[in-house]
């Protein structure tokens, strides 16, 4: 409990220290602040009692905040949110260290806002009160907007405003739905309460039509953040314009808030709606995979390419989640973490060569293996992780997501019926080919081939910090933990899979029933006789 609050609040304290402290020490203060946050969270994870059981938010409560409205300061983790929070906390110091040389102006504000960003992301993952979650979820936008709008590229203002308005609009749907659910709870019980578990218990008792709308509205909110086709257009622009560290956090932590929201709110709260809309979401996810992959293919801007690839990858993640069986759900959660690691690392790598050449255009710069061999090795490793090479982390999530989709048609053999099935998996599988295609083309242009450097070295010389041709020790130290994590998770996924499994099953607890009900409905079986006939009809 104390540790959680330390990890949330310490970055804010550090942000104050950055604000009042001298400019020179700002970056080190910020670095220390994120390290303490990571340390506290790691310590909490070390002693976490519920790694292997489904207990929701064990051992954690919090003081009341607005008692009239039932809003509390209660925080706590289950394994999924803990993993995602650990991922964010793990990336924070790396991002700050990655900004040491790239951010040279207005450093105090930068590090201050970055720390606030970190703490609001952890707050969102840690919250067990829906309103507290909303606050963390929404507040990430403020520092991120400022980071993009002040430190970004040439179109930074447009990008920042679009990101803010777009995702804000989405979260309005979410907030309205959460308030509606709270109100329903008040109707049922007589008092406001926004505890997520309590709300979940309330909503699953609501009629299916209500659940349908609750699910749809929550889905709209989270789909913007994921981002799911066709609500993705803010993302490439924001990524393209954001400074490196901003892109990393945006891709690795903030997008995960969307998928996490599905895991935590939309799916468990409205199983009837989820069951009814699963094929719709799955189709959108598949479109996202194919569509974004094809767009990646024609990108010449390295960062935009990786941004669109995020859309494709998270499409696969959503597909796994909406396969509505433990394989897919587990794969999806695993994929969230993996995508955070490998895509974050790719953004860092791209940022490193961008700092040296001041261009991300793969037509202008390329063949860097000759100039930057160490960087090239990391780049190849992370690209392979992103492609989903077995033995690296991306593969595990991919194979489980696709496997989950594949057996989603099973008539109760897996215990979790679904409506997706092999065709969905086949079409989504094409994404694997496309992923190899566009990422290898990126590698082929950027890393391999004859050395191409921009001719006007003026930009290079005018940079405030003179950088070595290949990445320096600091940059190696940033990438190495990510590389180790990628390899380790690829070779030893079992502990993490074991940790996710109970949570995935708990999330899906109501689905077999709901999906069977829907299938029976569409088959025309009267609802009353369902319980007797389900087993017989499935075995026929």
């Amino acid at each position, binding site marked *: 409990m104390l540790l959680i609050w330390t990890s949330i609040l310490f970055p804010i304290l550090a942000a104050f220290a950055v604000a009042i402290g001298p400019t020179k020490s700002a970056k080190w203060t910020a670095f220390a602040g994120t390290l303490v946050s990571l340390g506290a969270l790691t310590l909490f994870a070390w002693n976490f009692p519920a790694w292997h059981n489904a207990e929701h938010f064990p051992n954690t409560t919090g003081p009341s905040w607005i008692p009239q409205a039932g809003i509390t300061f209660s925080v706590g983790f289950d394994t999924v949110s803990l993993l995602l929070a650990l991922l964010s906390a793990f990336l924070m110091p790396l991002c700050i260290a990655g900004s040491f040389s790239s951010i040279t102006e207005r450093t105090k504000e930068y590090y201050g806002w970055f720390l606030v960003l970190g703490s609001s992301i952890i707050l969102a993952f840690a919250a067990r009160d829906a309103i507290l979650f909303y606050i963390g979820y929404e507040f990430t936008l403020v520092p991120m907007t400022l980071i993009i709008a002040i430190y970004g590229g040439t179109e930074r203002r447009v990008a920042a405003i679009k990101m803010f308005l777009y995702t804000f609009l989405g979260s309005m749907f979410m907030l309205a739905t959460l308030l509606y659910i709270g109100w329903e709870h008040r109707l049922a019980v007589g008092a406001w309460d926004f505890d997520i578990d309590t709300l979940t218990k309330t909503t699953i008792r609501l009629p299916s039509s209500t659940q349908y709308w609750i699910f749809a509205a929550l889905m709209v909110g989270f789909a913007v953040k994921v981002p799911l086709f066709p609500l993705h257009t803010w993302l490439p622009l924001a990524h393209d314009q954001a400074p490196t560290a901003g892109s990393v956090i945006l891709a690795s932590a903030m997008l995960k808030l969307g998928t996490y929201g599905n895991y935590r709110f939309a799916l468990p709260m409205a199983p009837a709606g989820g069951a009814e809309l699963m094929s719709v979401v799955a189709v959108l996810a598949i479109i996202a995979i194919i569509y974004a992959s*094809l767009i990646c293919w024609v990108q010449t801007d390295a960062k935009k390419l990786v941004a669109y690839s995020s859309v494709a990858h998270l499409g696969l993640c959503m597909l796994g989640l909406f396969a509505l069986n*433990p394989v897919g759900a587990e794969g999806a959660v695993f994929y969230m973490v993996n995508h955070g690691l490998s895509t974050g690392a790719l953004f860092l790598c791209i940022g490193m060569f961008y700092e040296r050449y001041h261009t991300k255009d793969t037509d202008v710069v390329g063949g860097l293996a000759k100039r930057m061999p160490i960087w090239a090795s990391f780049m190849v490793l992370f690209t392979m992780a992103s492609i989903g090479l077995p033995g690296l982390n991306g593969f595990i999530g991919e194979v489980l997501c696709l496997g989950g989709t594949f057996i989603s048609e099973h008539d109760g053999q897996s215990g979790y019926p679904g409506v997706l099935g092999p065709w969905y998996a086949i079409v989504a599988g094409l994404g694997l080919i496309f992923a190899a295609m566009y990422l*290898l083309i990126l590698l082929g242009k950027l890393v391999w081939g004859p050395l191409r450097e921009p001719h006007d070295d003026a930009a290079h010389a005018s940079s405030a910090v003179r950088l070595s041709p290949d990445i320096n020790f600091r940059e190696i130290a940033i990438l190495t933990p990510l590389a180790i994590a990628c390899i380790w998770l690829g070779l030893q996924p079992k502990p993490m*899979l074991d940790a996710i499994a109970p949570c995935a099953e708990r999330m899906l607890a109501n689905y077999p029933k709901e999906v069977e009900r829907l299938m029976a409905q569409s088959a025309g079986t009267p609802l009353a006789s369902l319980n007797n006939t389900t087993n017989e009809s499935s075995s026929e």
Partner: protein
Amino acid sequence: MTQLTSIPQAIIAPELSWVGLALLLPLLAAVACALCCALRVKGKAAAIITILALAASFGIIVKAYFAYTGPVQVPIFQWIDFEWGAGQFQSFNANCALYIDTLTLFWMLFVTGLGTLIAIYASEYMEGYCGSGYSRFFFGICIFLFSMSALVMGDNLIMLYLGWEGVGLASYLLIGFDYARPAAVAAGKKAFIMNRIGDLGLALGIFMLWANYGTLQYSELFAAMNKGGQTSVDWDLSVIPFLLMLGAFGKSAQIPLFTWLPDAMEGPTPVSALIHAATMVTAGVYLIARMYPFFELHPEALATVAWVGGLTALLAATIGMAQYDIKRVFAYSTISQLGYMFLGLGVGTSFGACYHTLTHAFFKALLFLTAGAIMHGFAGQLDLRKLSGLRHIPGWRIVSWTMLVGCLWLSAFPYTAAFFSKDAILLQALTSVRADFRFLGWLGLFTAALTAYYTFRVWFRVCAGPLHFEPGAEAHSESHDHHAPSTHAAHTTAPAAKSDHSFHPHAPRWAINGVLLILALGAVVVGVPAYNQAFAHKDNWAQQMIAGSSAMQGAGLAEDHGSQASVEHPKVLGMDAHTGLTIVGCTASIGGILIAWYFHLGSRKSADQLRAALLRRWWIRWVPICMENKWYVDEIYHFCFRLPMWLGSQILYFADRHFLDGVMVDGLAKIPIAVGKLFRPLYGGALQGYASTMAGGIALVVAWLSWIWLRGFN
């Protein structure tokens, strides 16, 4: 379908976990090579580490072979392993475990053995790169050996997939080893992507197996097959073999996914020998042999394999006849020989296919290594029109004669090992009860003649004839200068060439020559099982090895056909099948060689005359043109798949920016602005304007309230 013998059940043997070292050692060596790379080691440390690790790995496999008693399953550690219920279909298990049966050992023996030899060869061949990529090269080799071992020894299909993709990665990294050359990079990319297309088929096949049988472990899958292979799940099982087949076709460069292999020759030659000739490309054969029982799930699955194999063999042979680059000729011959293996698998002799894999591994590795030695010595020259009579140079005798051995074997010269292995395949095809298989058999015989022709076209051109050579483009390039000091001794002792300028080819030294000799010896030795069978009527070792594994169902099938043959005496050209085939096979092989002798040694001019004569006649000119241009397959793929997709992507990107983002999103954002503009005149800036707006607003509110009041508040 005939009654099939059941596959022996594997027992779990954790005490055999030392076999896992064969996997671990290459991985450790890879780490060590990576360290060498990072520390910029200038010497040959990486090569020594690699050779030691691979030799140890080979030793372990040999030990495992002698310790072998029956199929075993060796658990090592849990990889992906979880379940959500007790039911058969409620788990997903893919652990790091080994499945060792005779097929595994058969494959591992030549994979690790050849891996070691080629690493030794490469330690000399690659010395020009010392300090700049030498360690990286051996890193790739180690990764390859690790992945290949995982592919072959894995106990489940996910392990196989791990190896499958891992060898793809190693192949990608090694083809693009010389990354400054765009052609090499493009070739690596092409190889990876084309393989990925096949991999999708494999992955879907794996999912299909899992969804149907609830497991991915070989032992459990085979147990299910022993019970008849049917499951309670009402899925279409018959697509499984076709999906697996797609994966095999991708990895083993068969129609329609074969175009990557010739391009892969951009890689260093030891890589071509090891990965793209001897081992990796046979993974498809391994997959089908391993999953052989599942190819019975659809009656036409094996026939498809046979047709694809037979047609690929012919197509690749025709292209190989018209190529001038030695390595490319050998690459097409690899595709063609792989076609034979698939033909063998398809017509039901998994023994023939696997045995041909073994013999092919040796002679093809040998051929590539000789080509590599020539390339190394002649500064990258591989054009067979520009090399001639190399056997006259003293330092090149070993190369020339070992190349002759390789060529004889490749052309299935009578009573070489490859003759027997090809014989086994063609016999099975020609004595089949199916007419289309018999046709494929004749097609295979015709292809054998073509093979003999193009093989000896290379040898007669390059090694025989008058001495003449032109060095390649790398003569004065940087990479040549790199290895000049280290090979200086060889350089100066080489005799003055009778060339028009002062180029001195440097002859290979002990590592290359030694490996060539060992491989030539190996190519002879792998014939021993066949000699035993043919002359001493002893058991064929290779047949036993295959029969003890999951590929035995095919072997059973073959025996079945064999017994049928003994009853009905199927005839080939009116003779006993064995005798007839021997005669026809000898004729094809020797005939091909003689034609090659006439055109490429006897009177080399007539070859050009023939080509010119063909090109003059409109009704036949398409044949040489198409053959020289590889039947335009690359171009067809480009225009049918790549180009439309690329255009589609551009359109999608345009639509994404301008329609989805521009019209939909920004359009939506314009609505509030437009509404705001409507009311803009009310806020013109003059104080009175604001005041009257306010007054008017109040008046409206008052009016509304009064209206409600007057109406009477319902």
